């Protein structure tokens, strides 16, 4: 059974999405066929629009339609605090808390030789030049505690510490409302490493 060419092409394109297998790709393509022509145009237009307008901010590498981005151009932000995140989604998650009032720097990934991602593929050089120029007082690394995340943190701290800025990493530990008794070894070890005086 073969799909006619335009449909086959659409399925093929959907299948390139992360986590989308042939079955889901088919389902998505059939959904598109069922859409009204207007809705389908809106979808196509938003893809082109997003692709055209969204850029990396030249300061912090956040995704934005303006440069510098909304955060970097916000006068009320504390410019001496800088939070380093792996990608824009982490930035958005932190912004949702409304707790952090400083600036960000988006690395655009984590160090991972297996994925061909060395430090040169990330926005590390830009980070290193921002820190002294913008007289940042503290760099907070908000990077996931995975093997690649930890490696990236180690790498960054090797380079940031000589600059004389305070470098910290957000704490990892027990989820709020959880029970010490049921925590796994890794979580407990992390929580112990990240303990603080009270």
């Amino acid at each position: 059974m073969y799909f006619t060419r335009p449909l086959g092409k659409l399925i093929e394109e959907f299948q390139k999405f992360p986590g989308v297998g042939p079955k889901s790709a088919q389902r998505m393509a059939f959904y598109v066929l069922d859409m009204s022509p207007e809705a389908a145009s809106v979808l196509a237009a938003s893809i082109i629009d997003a692709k055209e307008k969204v850029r990396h901010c030249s300061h912090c590498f956040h995704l934005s339609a303006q440069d510098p981005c909304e955060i970097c151009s916000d006068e009320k932000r504390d410019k001496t605090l800088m939070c380093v995140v792996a990608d824009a989604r982490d930035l958005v998650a932190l912004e949702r808390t409304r707790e952090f009032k400083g600036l960000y720097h988006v690395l655009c990934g984590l160090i991972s030789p297996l994925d061909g991602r060395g430090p040169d593929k990330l926005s590390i050089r830009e980070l290193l030049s921002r820190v002294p120029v913008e007289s940042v007082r503290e760099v907070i690394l908000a990077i996931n505690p995975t093997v690649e995340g930890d490696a990236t943190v180690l790498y960054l701290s090797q380079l940031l510490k000589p600059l004389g800025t305070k470098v910290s990493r957000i704490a990892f530990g027990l989820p709020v409302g959880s029970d010490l008794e049921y925590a796994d070894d890794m979580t407990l070890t992390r929580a112990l490493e990240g303990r603080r005086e009270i």
Partner: protein
Amino acid sequence: MRIKKIHLGQFRNLSSASVELGHGRNILIGQNAQGKSNFLEAIELLATGKSSRADSDFDLIAWGAKEMHAELVLEGGRGEEILSFALRQPAASCVAEKGGQKTQLSCRGSRVERTVKVNELTQPSAAGLIGRLIVVSFKSQDLNLLRGGPKFRRDWIDSLILKLRPSFQEVFSSYQKTIAQRNKLLKTLFEKGKLTVSDQDQLLVWDKQLARFGSRIIKTRLTLLSDLLPLAQDQQEKLSSQREHLSLRYVFRAPAERSASLEQVEEPDADGSTESPLSTGPLCAEKLAAMEELDLARTLLKELKDHRFEELRRRQSLIGPHRDDIVFCLNETDAASFASQGQQRSIVLSLKLAELNCIQEKLNDLPVLLLDDVLAELDTARQAQLLLAVEANMQTIITTTHVSGFDPIWLKDARIFTVCQGNINADKSAPASHL
């Protein structure tokens, strides 16, 4: 803990088997190649999330079938738990047309799909099964603990760690990821040829990661070995009427050659076996336990630094717990090279009994014991010692082709099953009739 019942569908040659196991001894009798070991393999799969003898998940599915499932009901300290493991081959292929050509959007080559559940709850990975059903298995291949390569010994101690501390899986998988990343980096840098400062910084990062997870693994192994050793020594002494003293040492392996620079990269590798143990002195239990994680991490870091060029040349991580070994000695001589066959069997039995004791002591619960074919191979004295260690209420599953060599006590109150061409049936007749 006990397995109440187990159900298998299309698991290797067991097309459909439902077995209600007895509380104590269960004996599966059958000719060669009927499915006895397959049955035990299924139990181990549900206990550890992996098979010790299958190269890929694919091998576990009955030939010609598209899926398999294995499920058991466990009665333990946490009440009843249902463990299940299912495999499914995705539909062969879907076809789409591309640029006028018919292209196969191939689904083949994609992995067999796993579904692992505990009490109907889907687990993110097979590791979700770890730590629920604890089995100690003893089979003739266990002689590899002495005769086989270092991997057999590492796998043995690591699997014992997981039985006692299931969440240690996280450390093992972080270490494996680190090694994979580090090896890739070594390969990339080797191909590039010249190391920049940034490259060296990058290597240092992965050194630190290796040292961090590696030292935790080594420390945990050392501690466990030092707990296990006296138990095994005790068994060995009993087996040999006090004549044989068992000892062990943990060997940190490192490449012997230390080439000094990258200039030597073109030089062909003389032979693969340039390993020499870093630490050879026999480590007594106290000394083993005294090594601290931080010291170990520091040692690893230093060794990594000293072997940088050798590692680059071989494009592989050559130092760390994934290369280490355990050497067993009988009366201070290397048992793998010098002990007799019978002595080697005794050592393996001692280690297994020590494992059994250790689990009982630490978990305060009885593991399930699997004896694949080994009982008939043991002489009466060894069978007796095994009997001593196996409490009557420890669930034991024994496979054999015949029970003639068994000490009659094994058969007392045992539930007998016959295994024939992939069918497993409870034998209603009295066990004594098999004698």
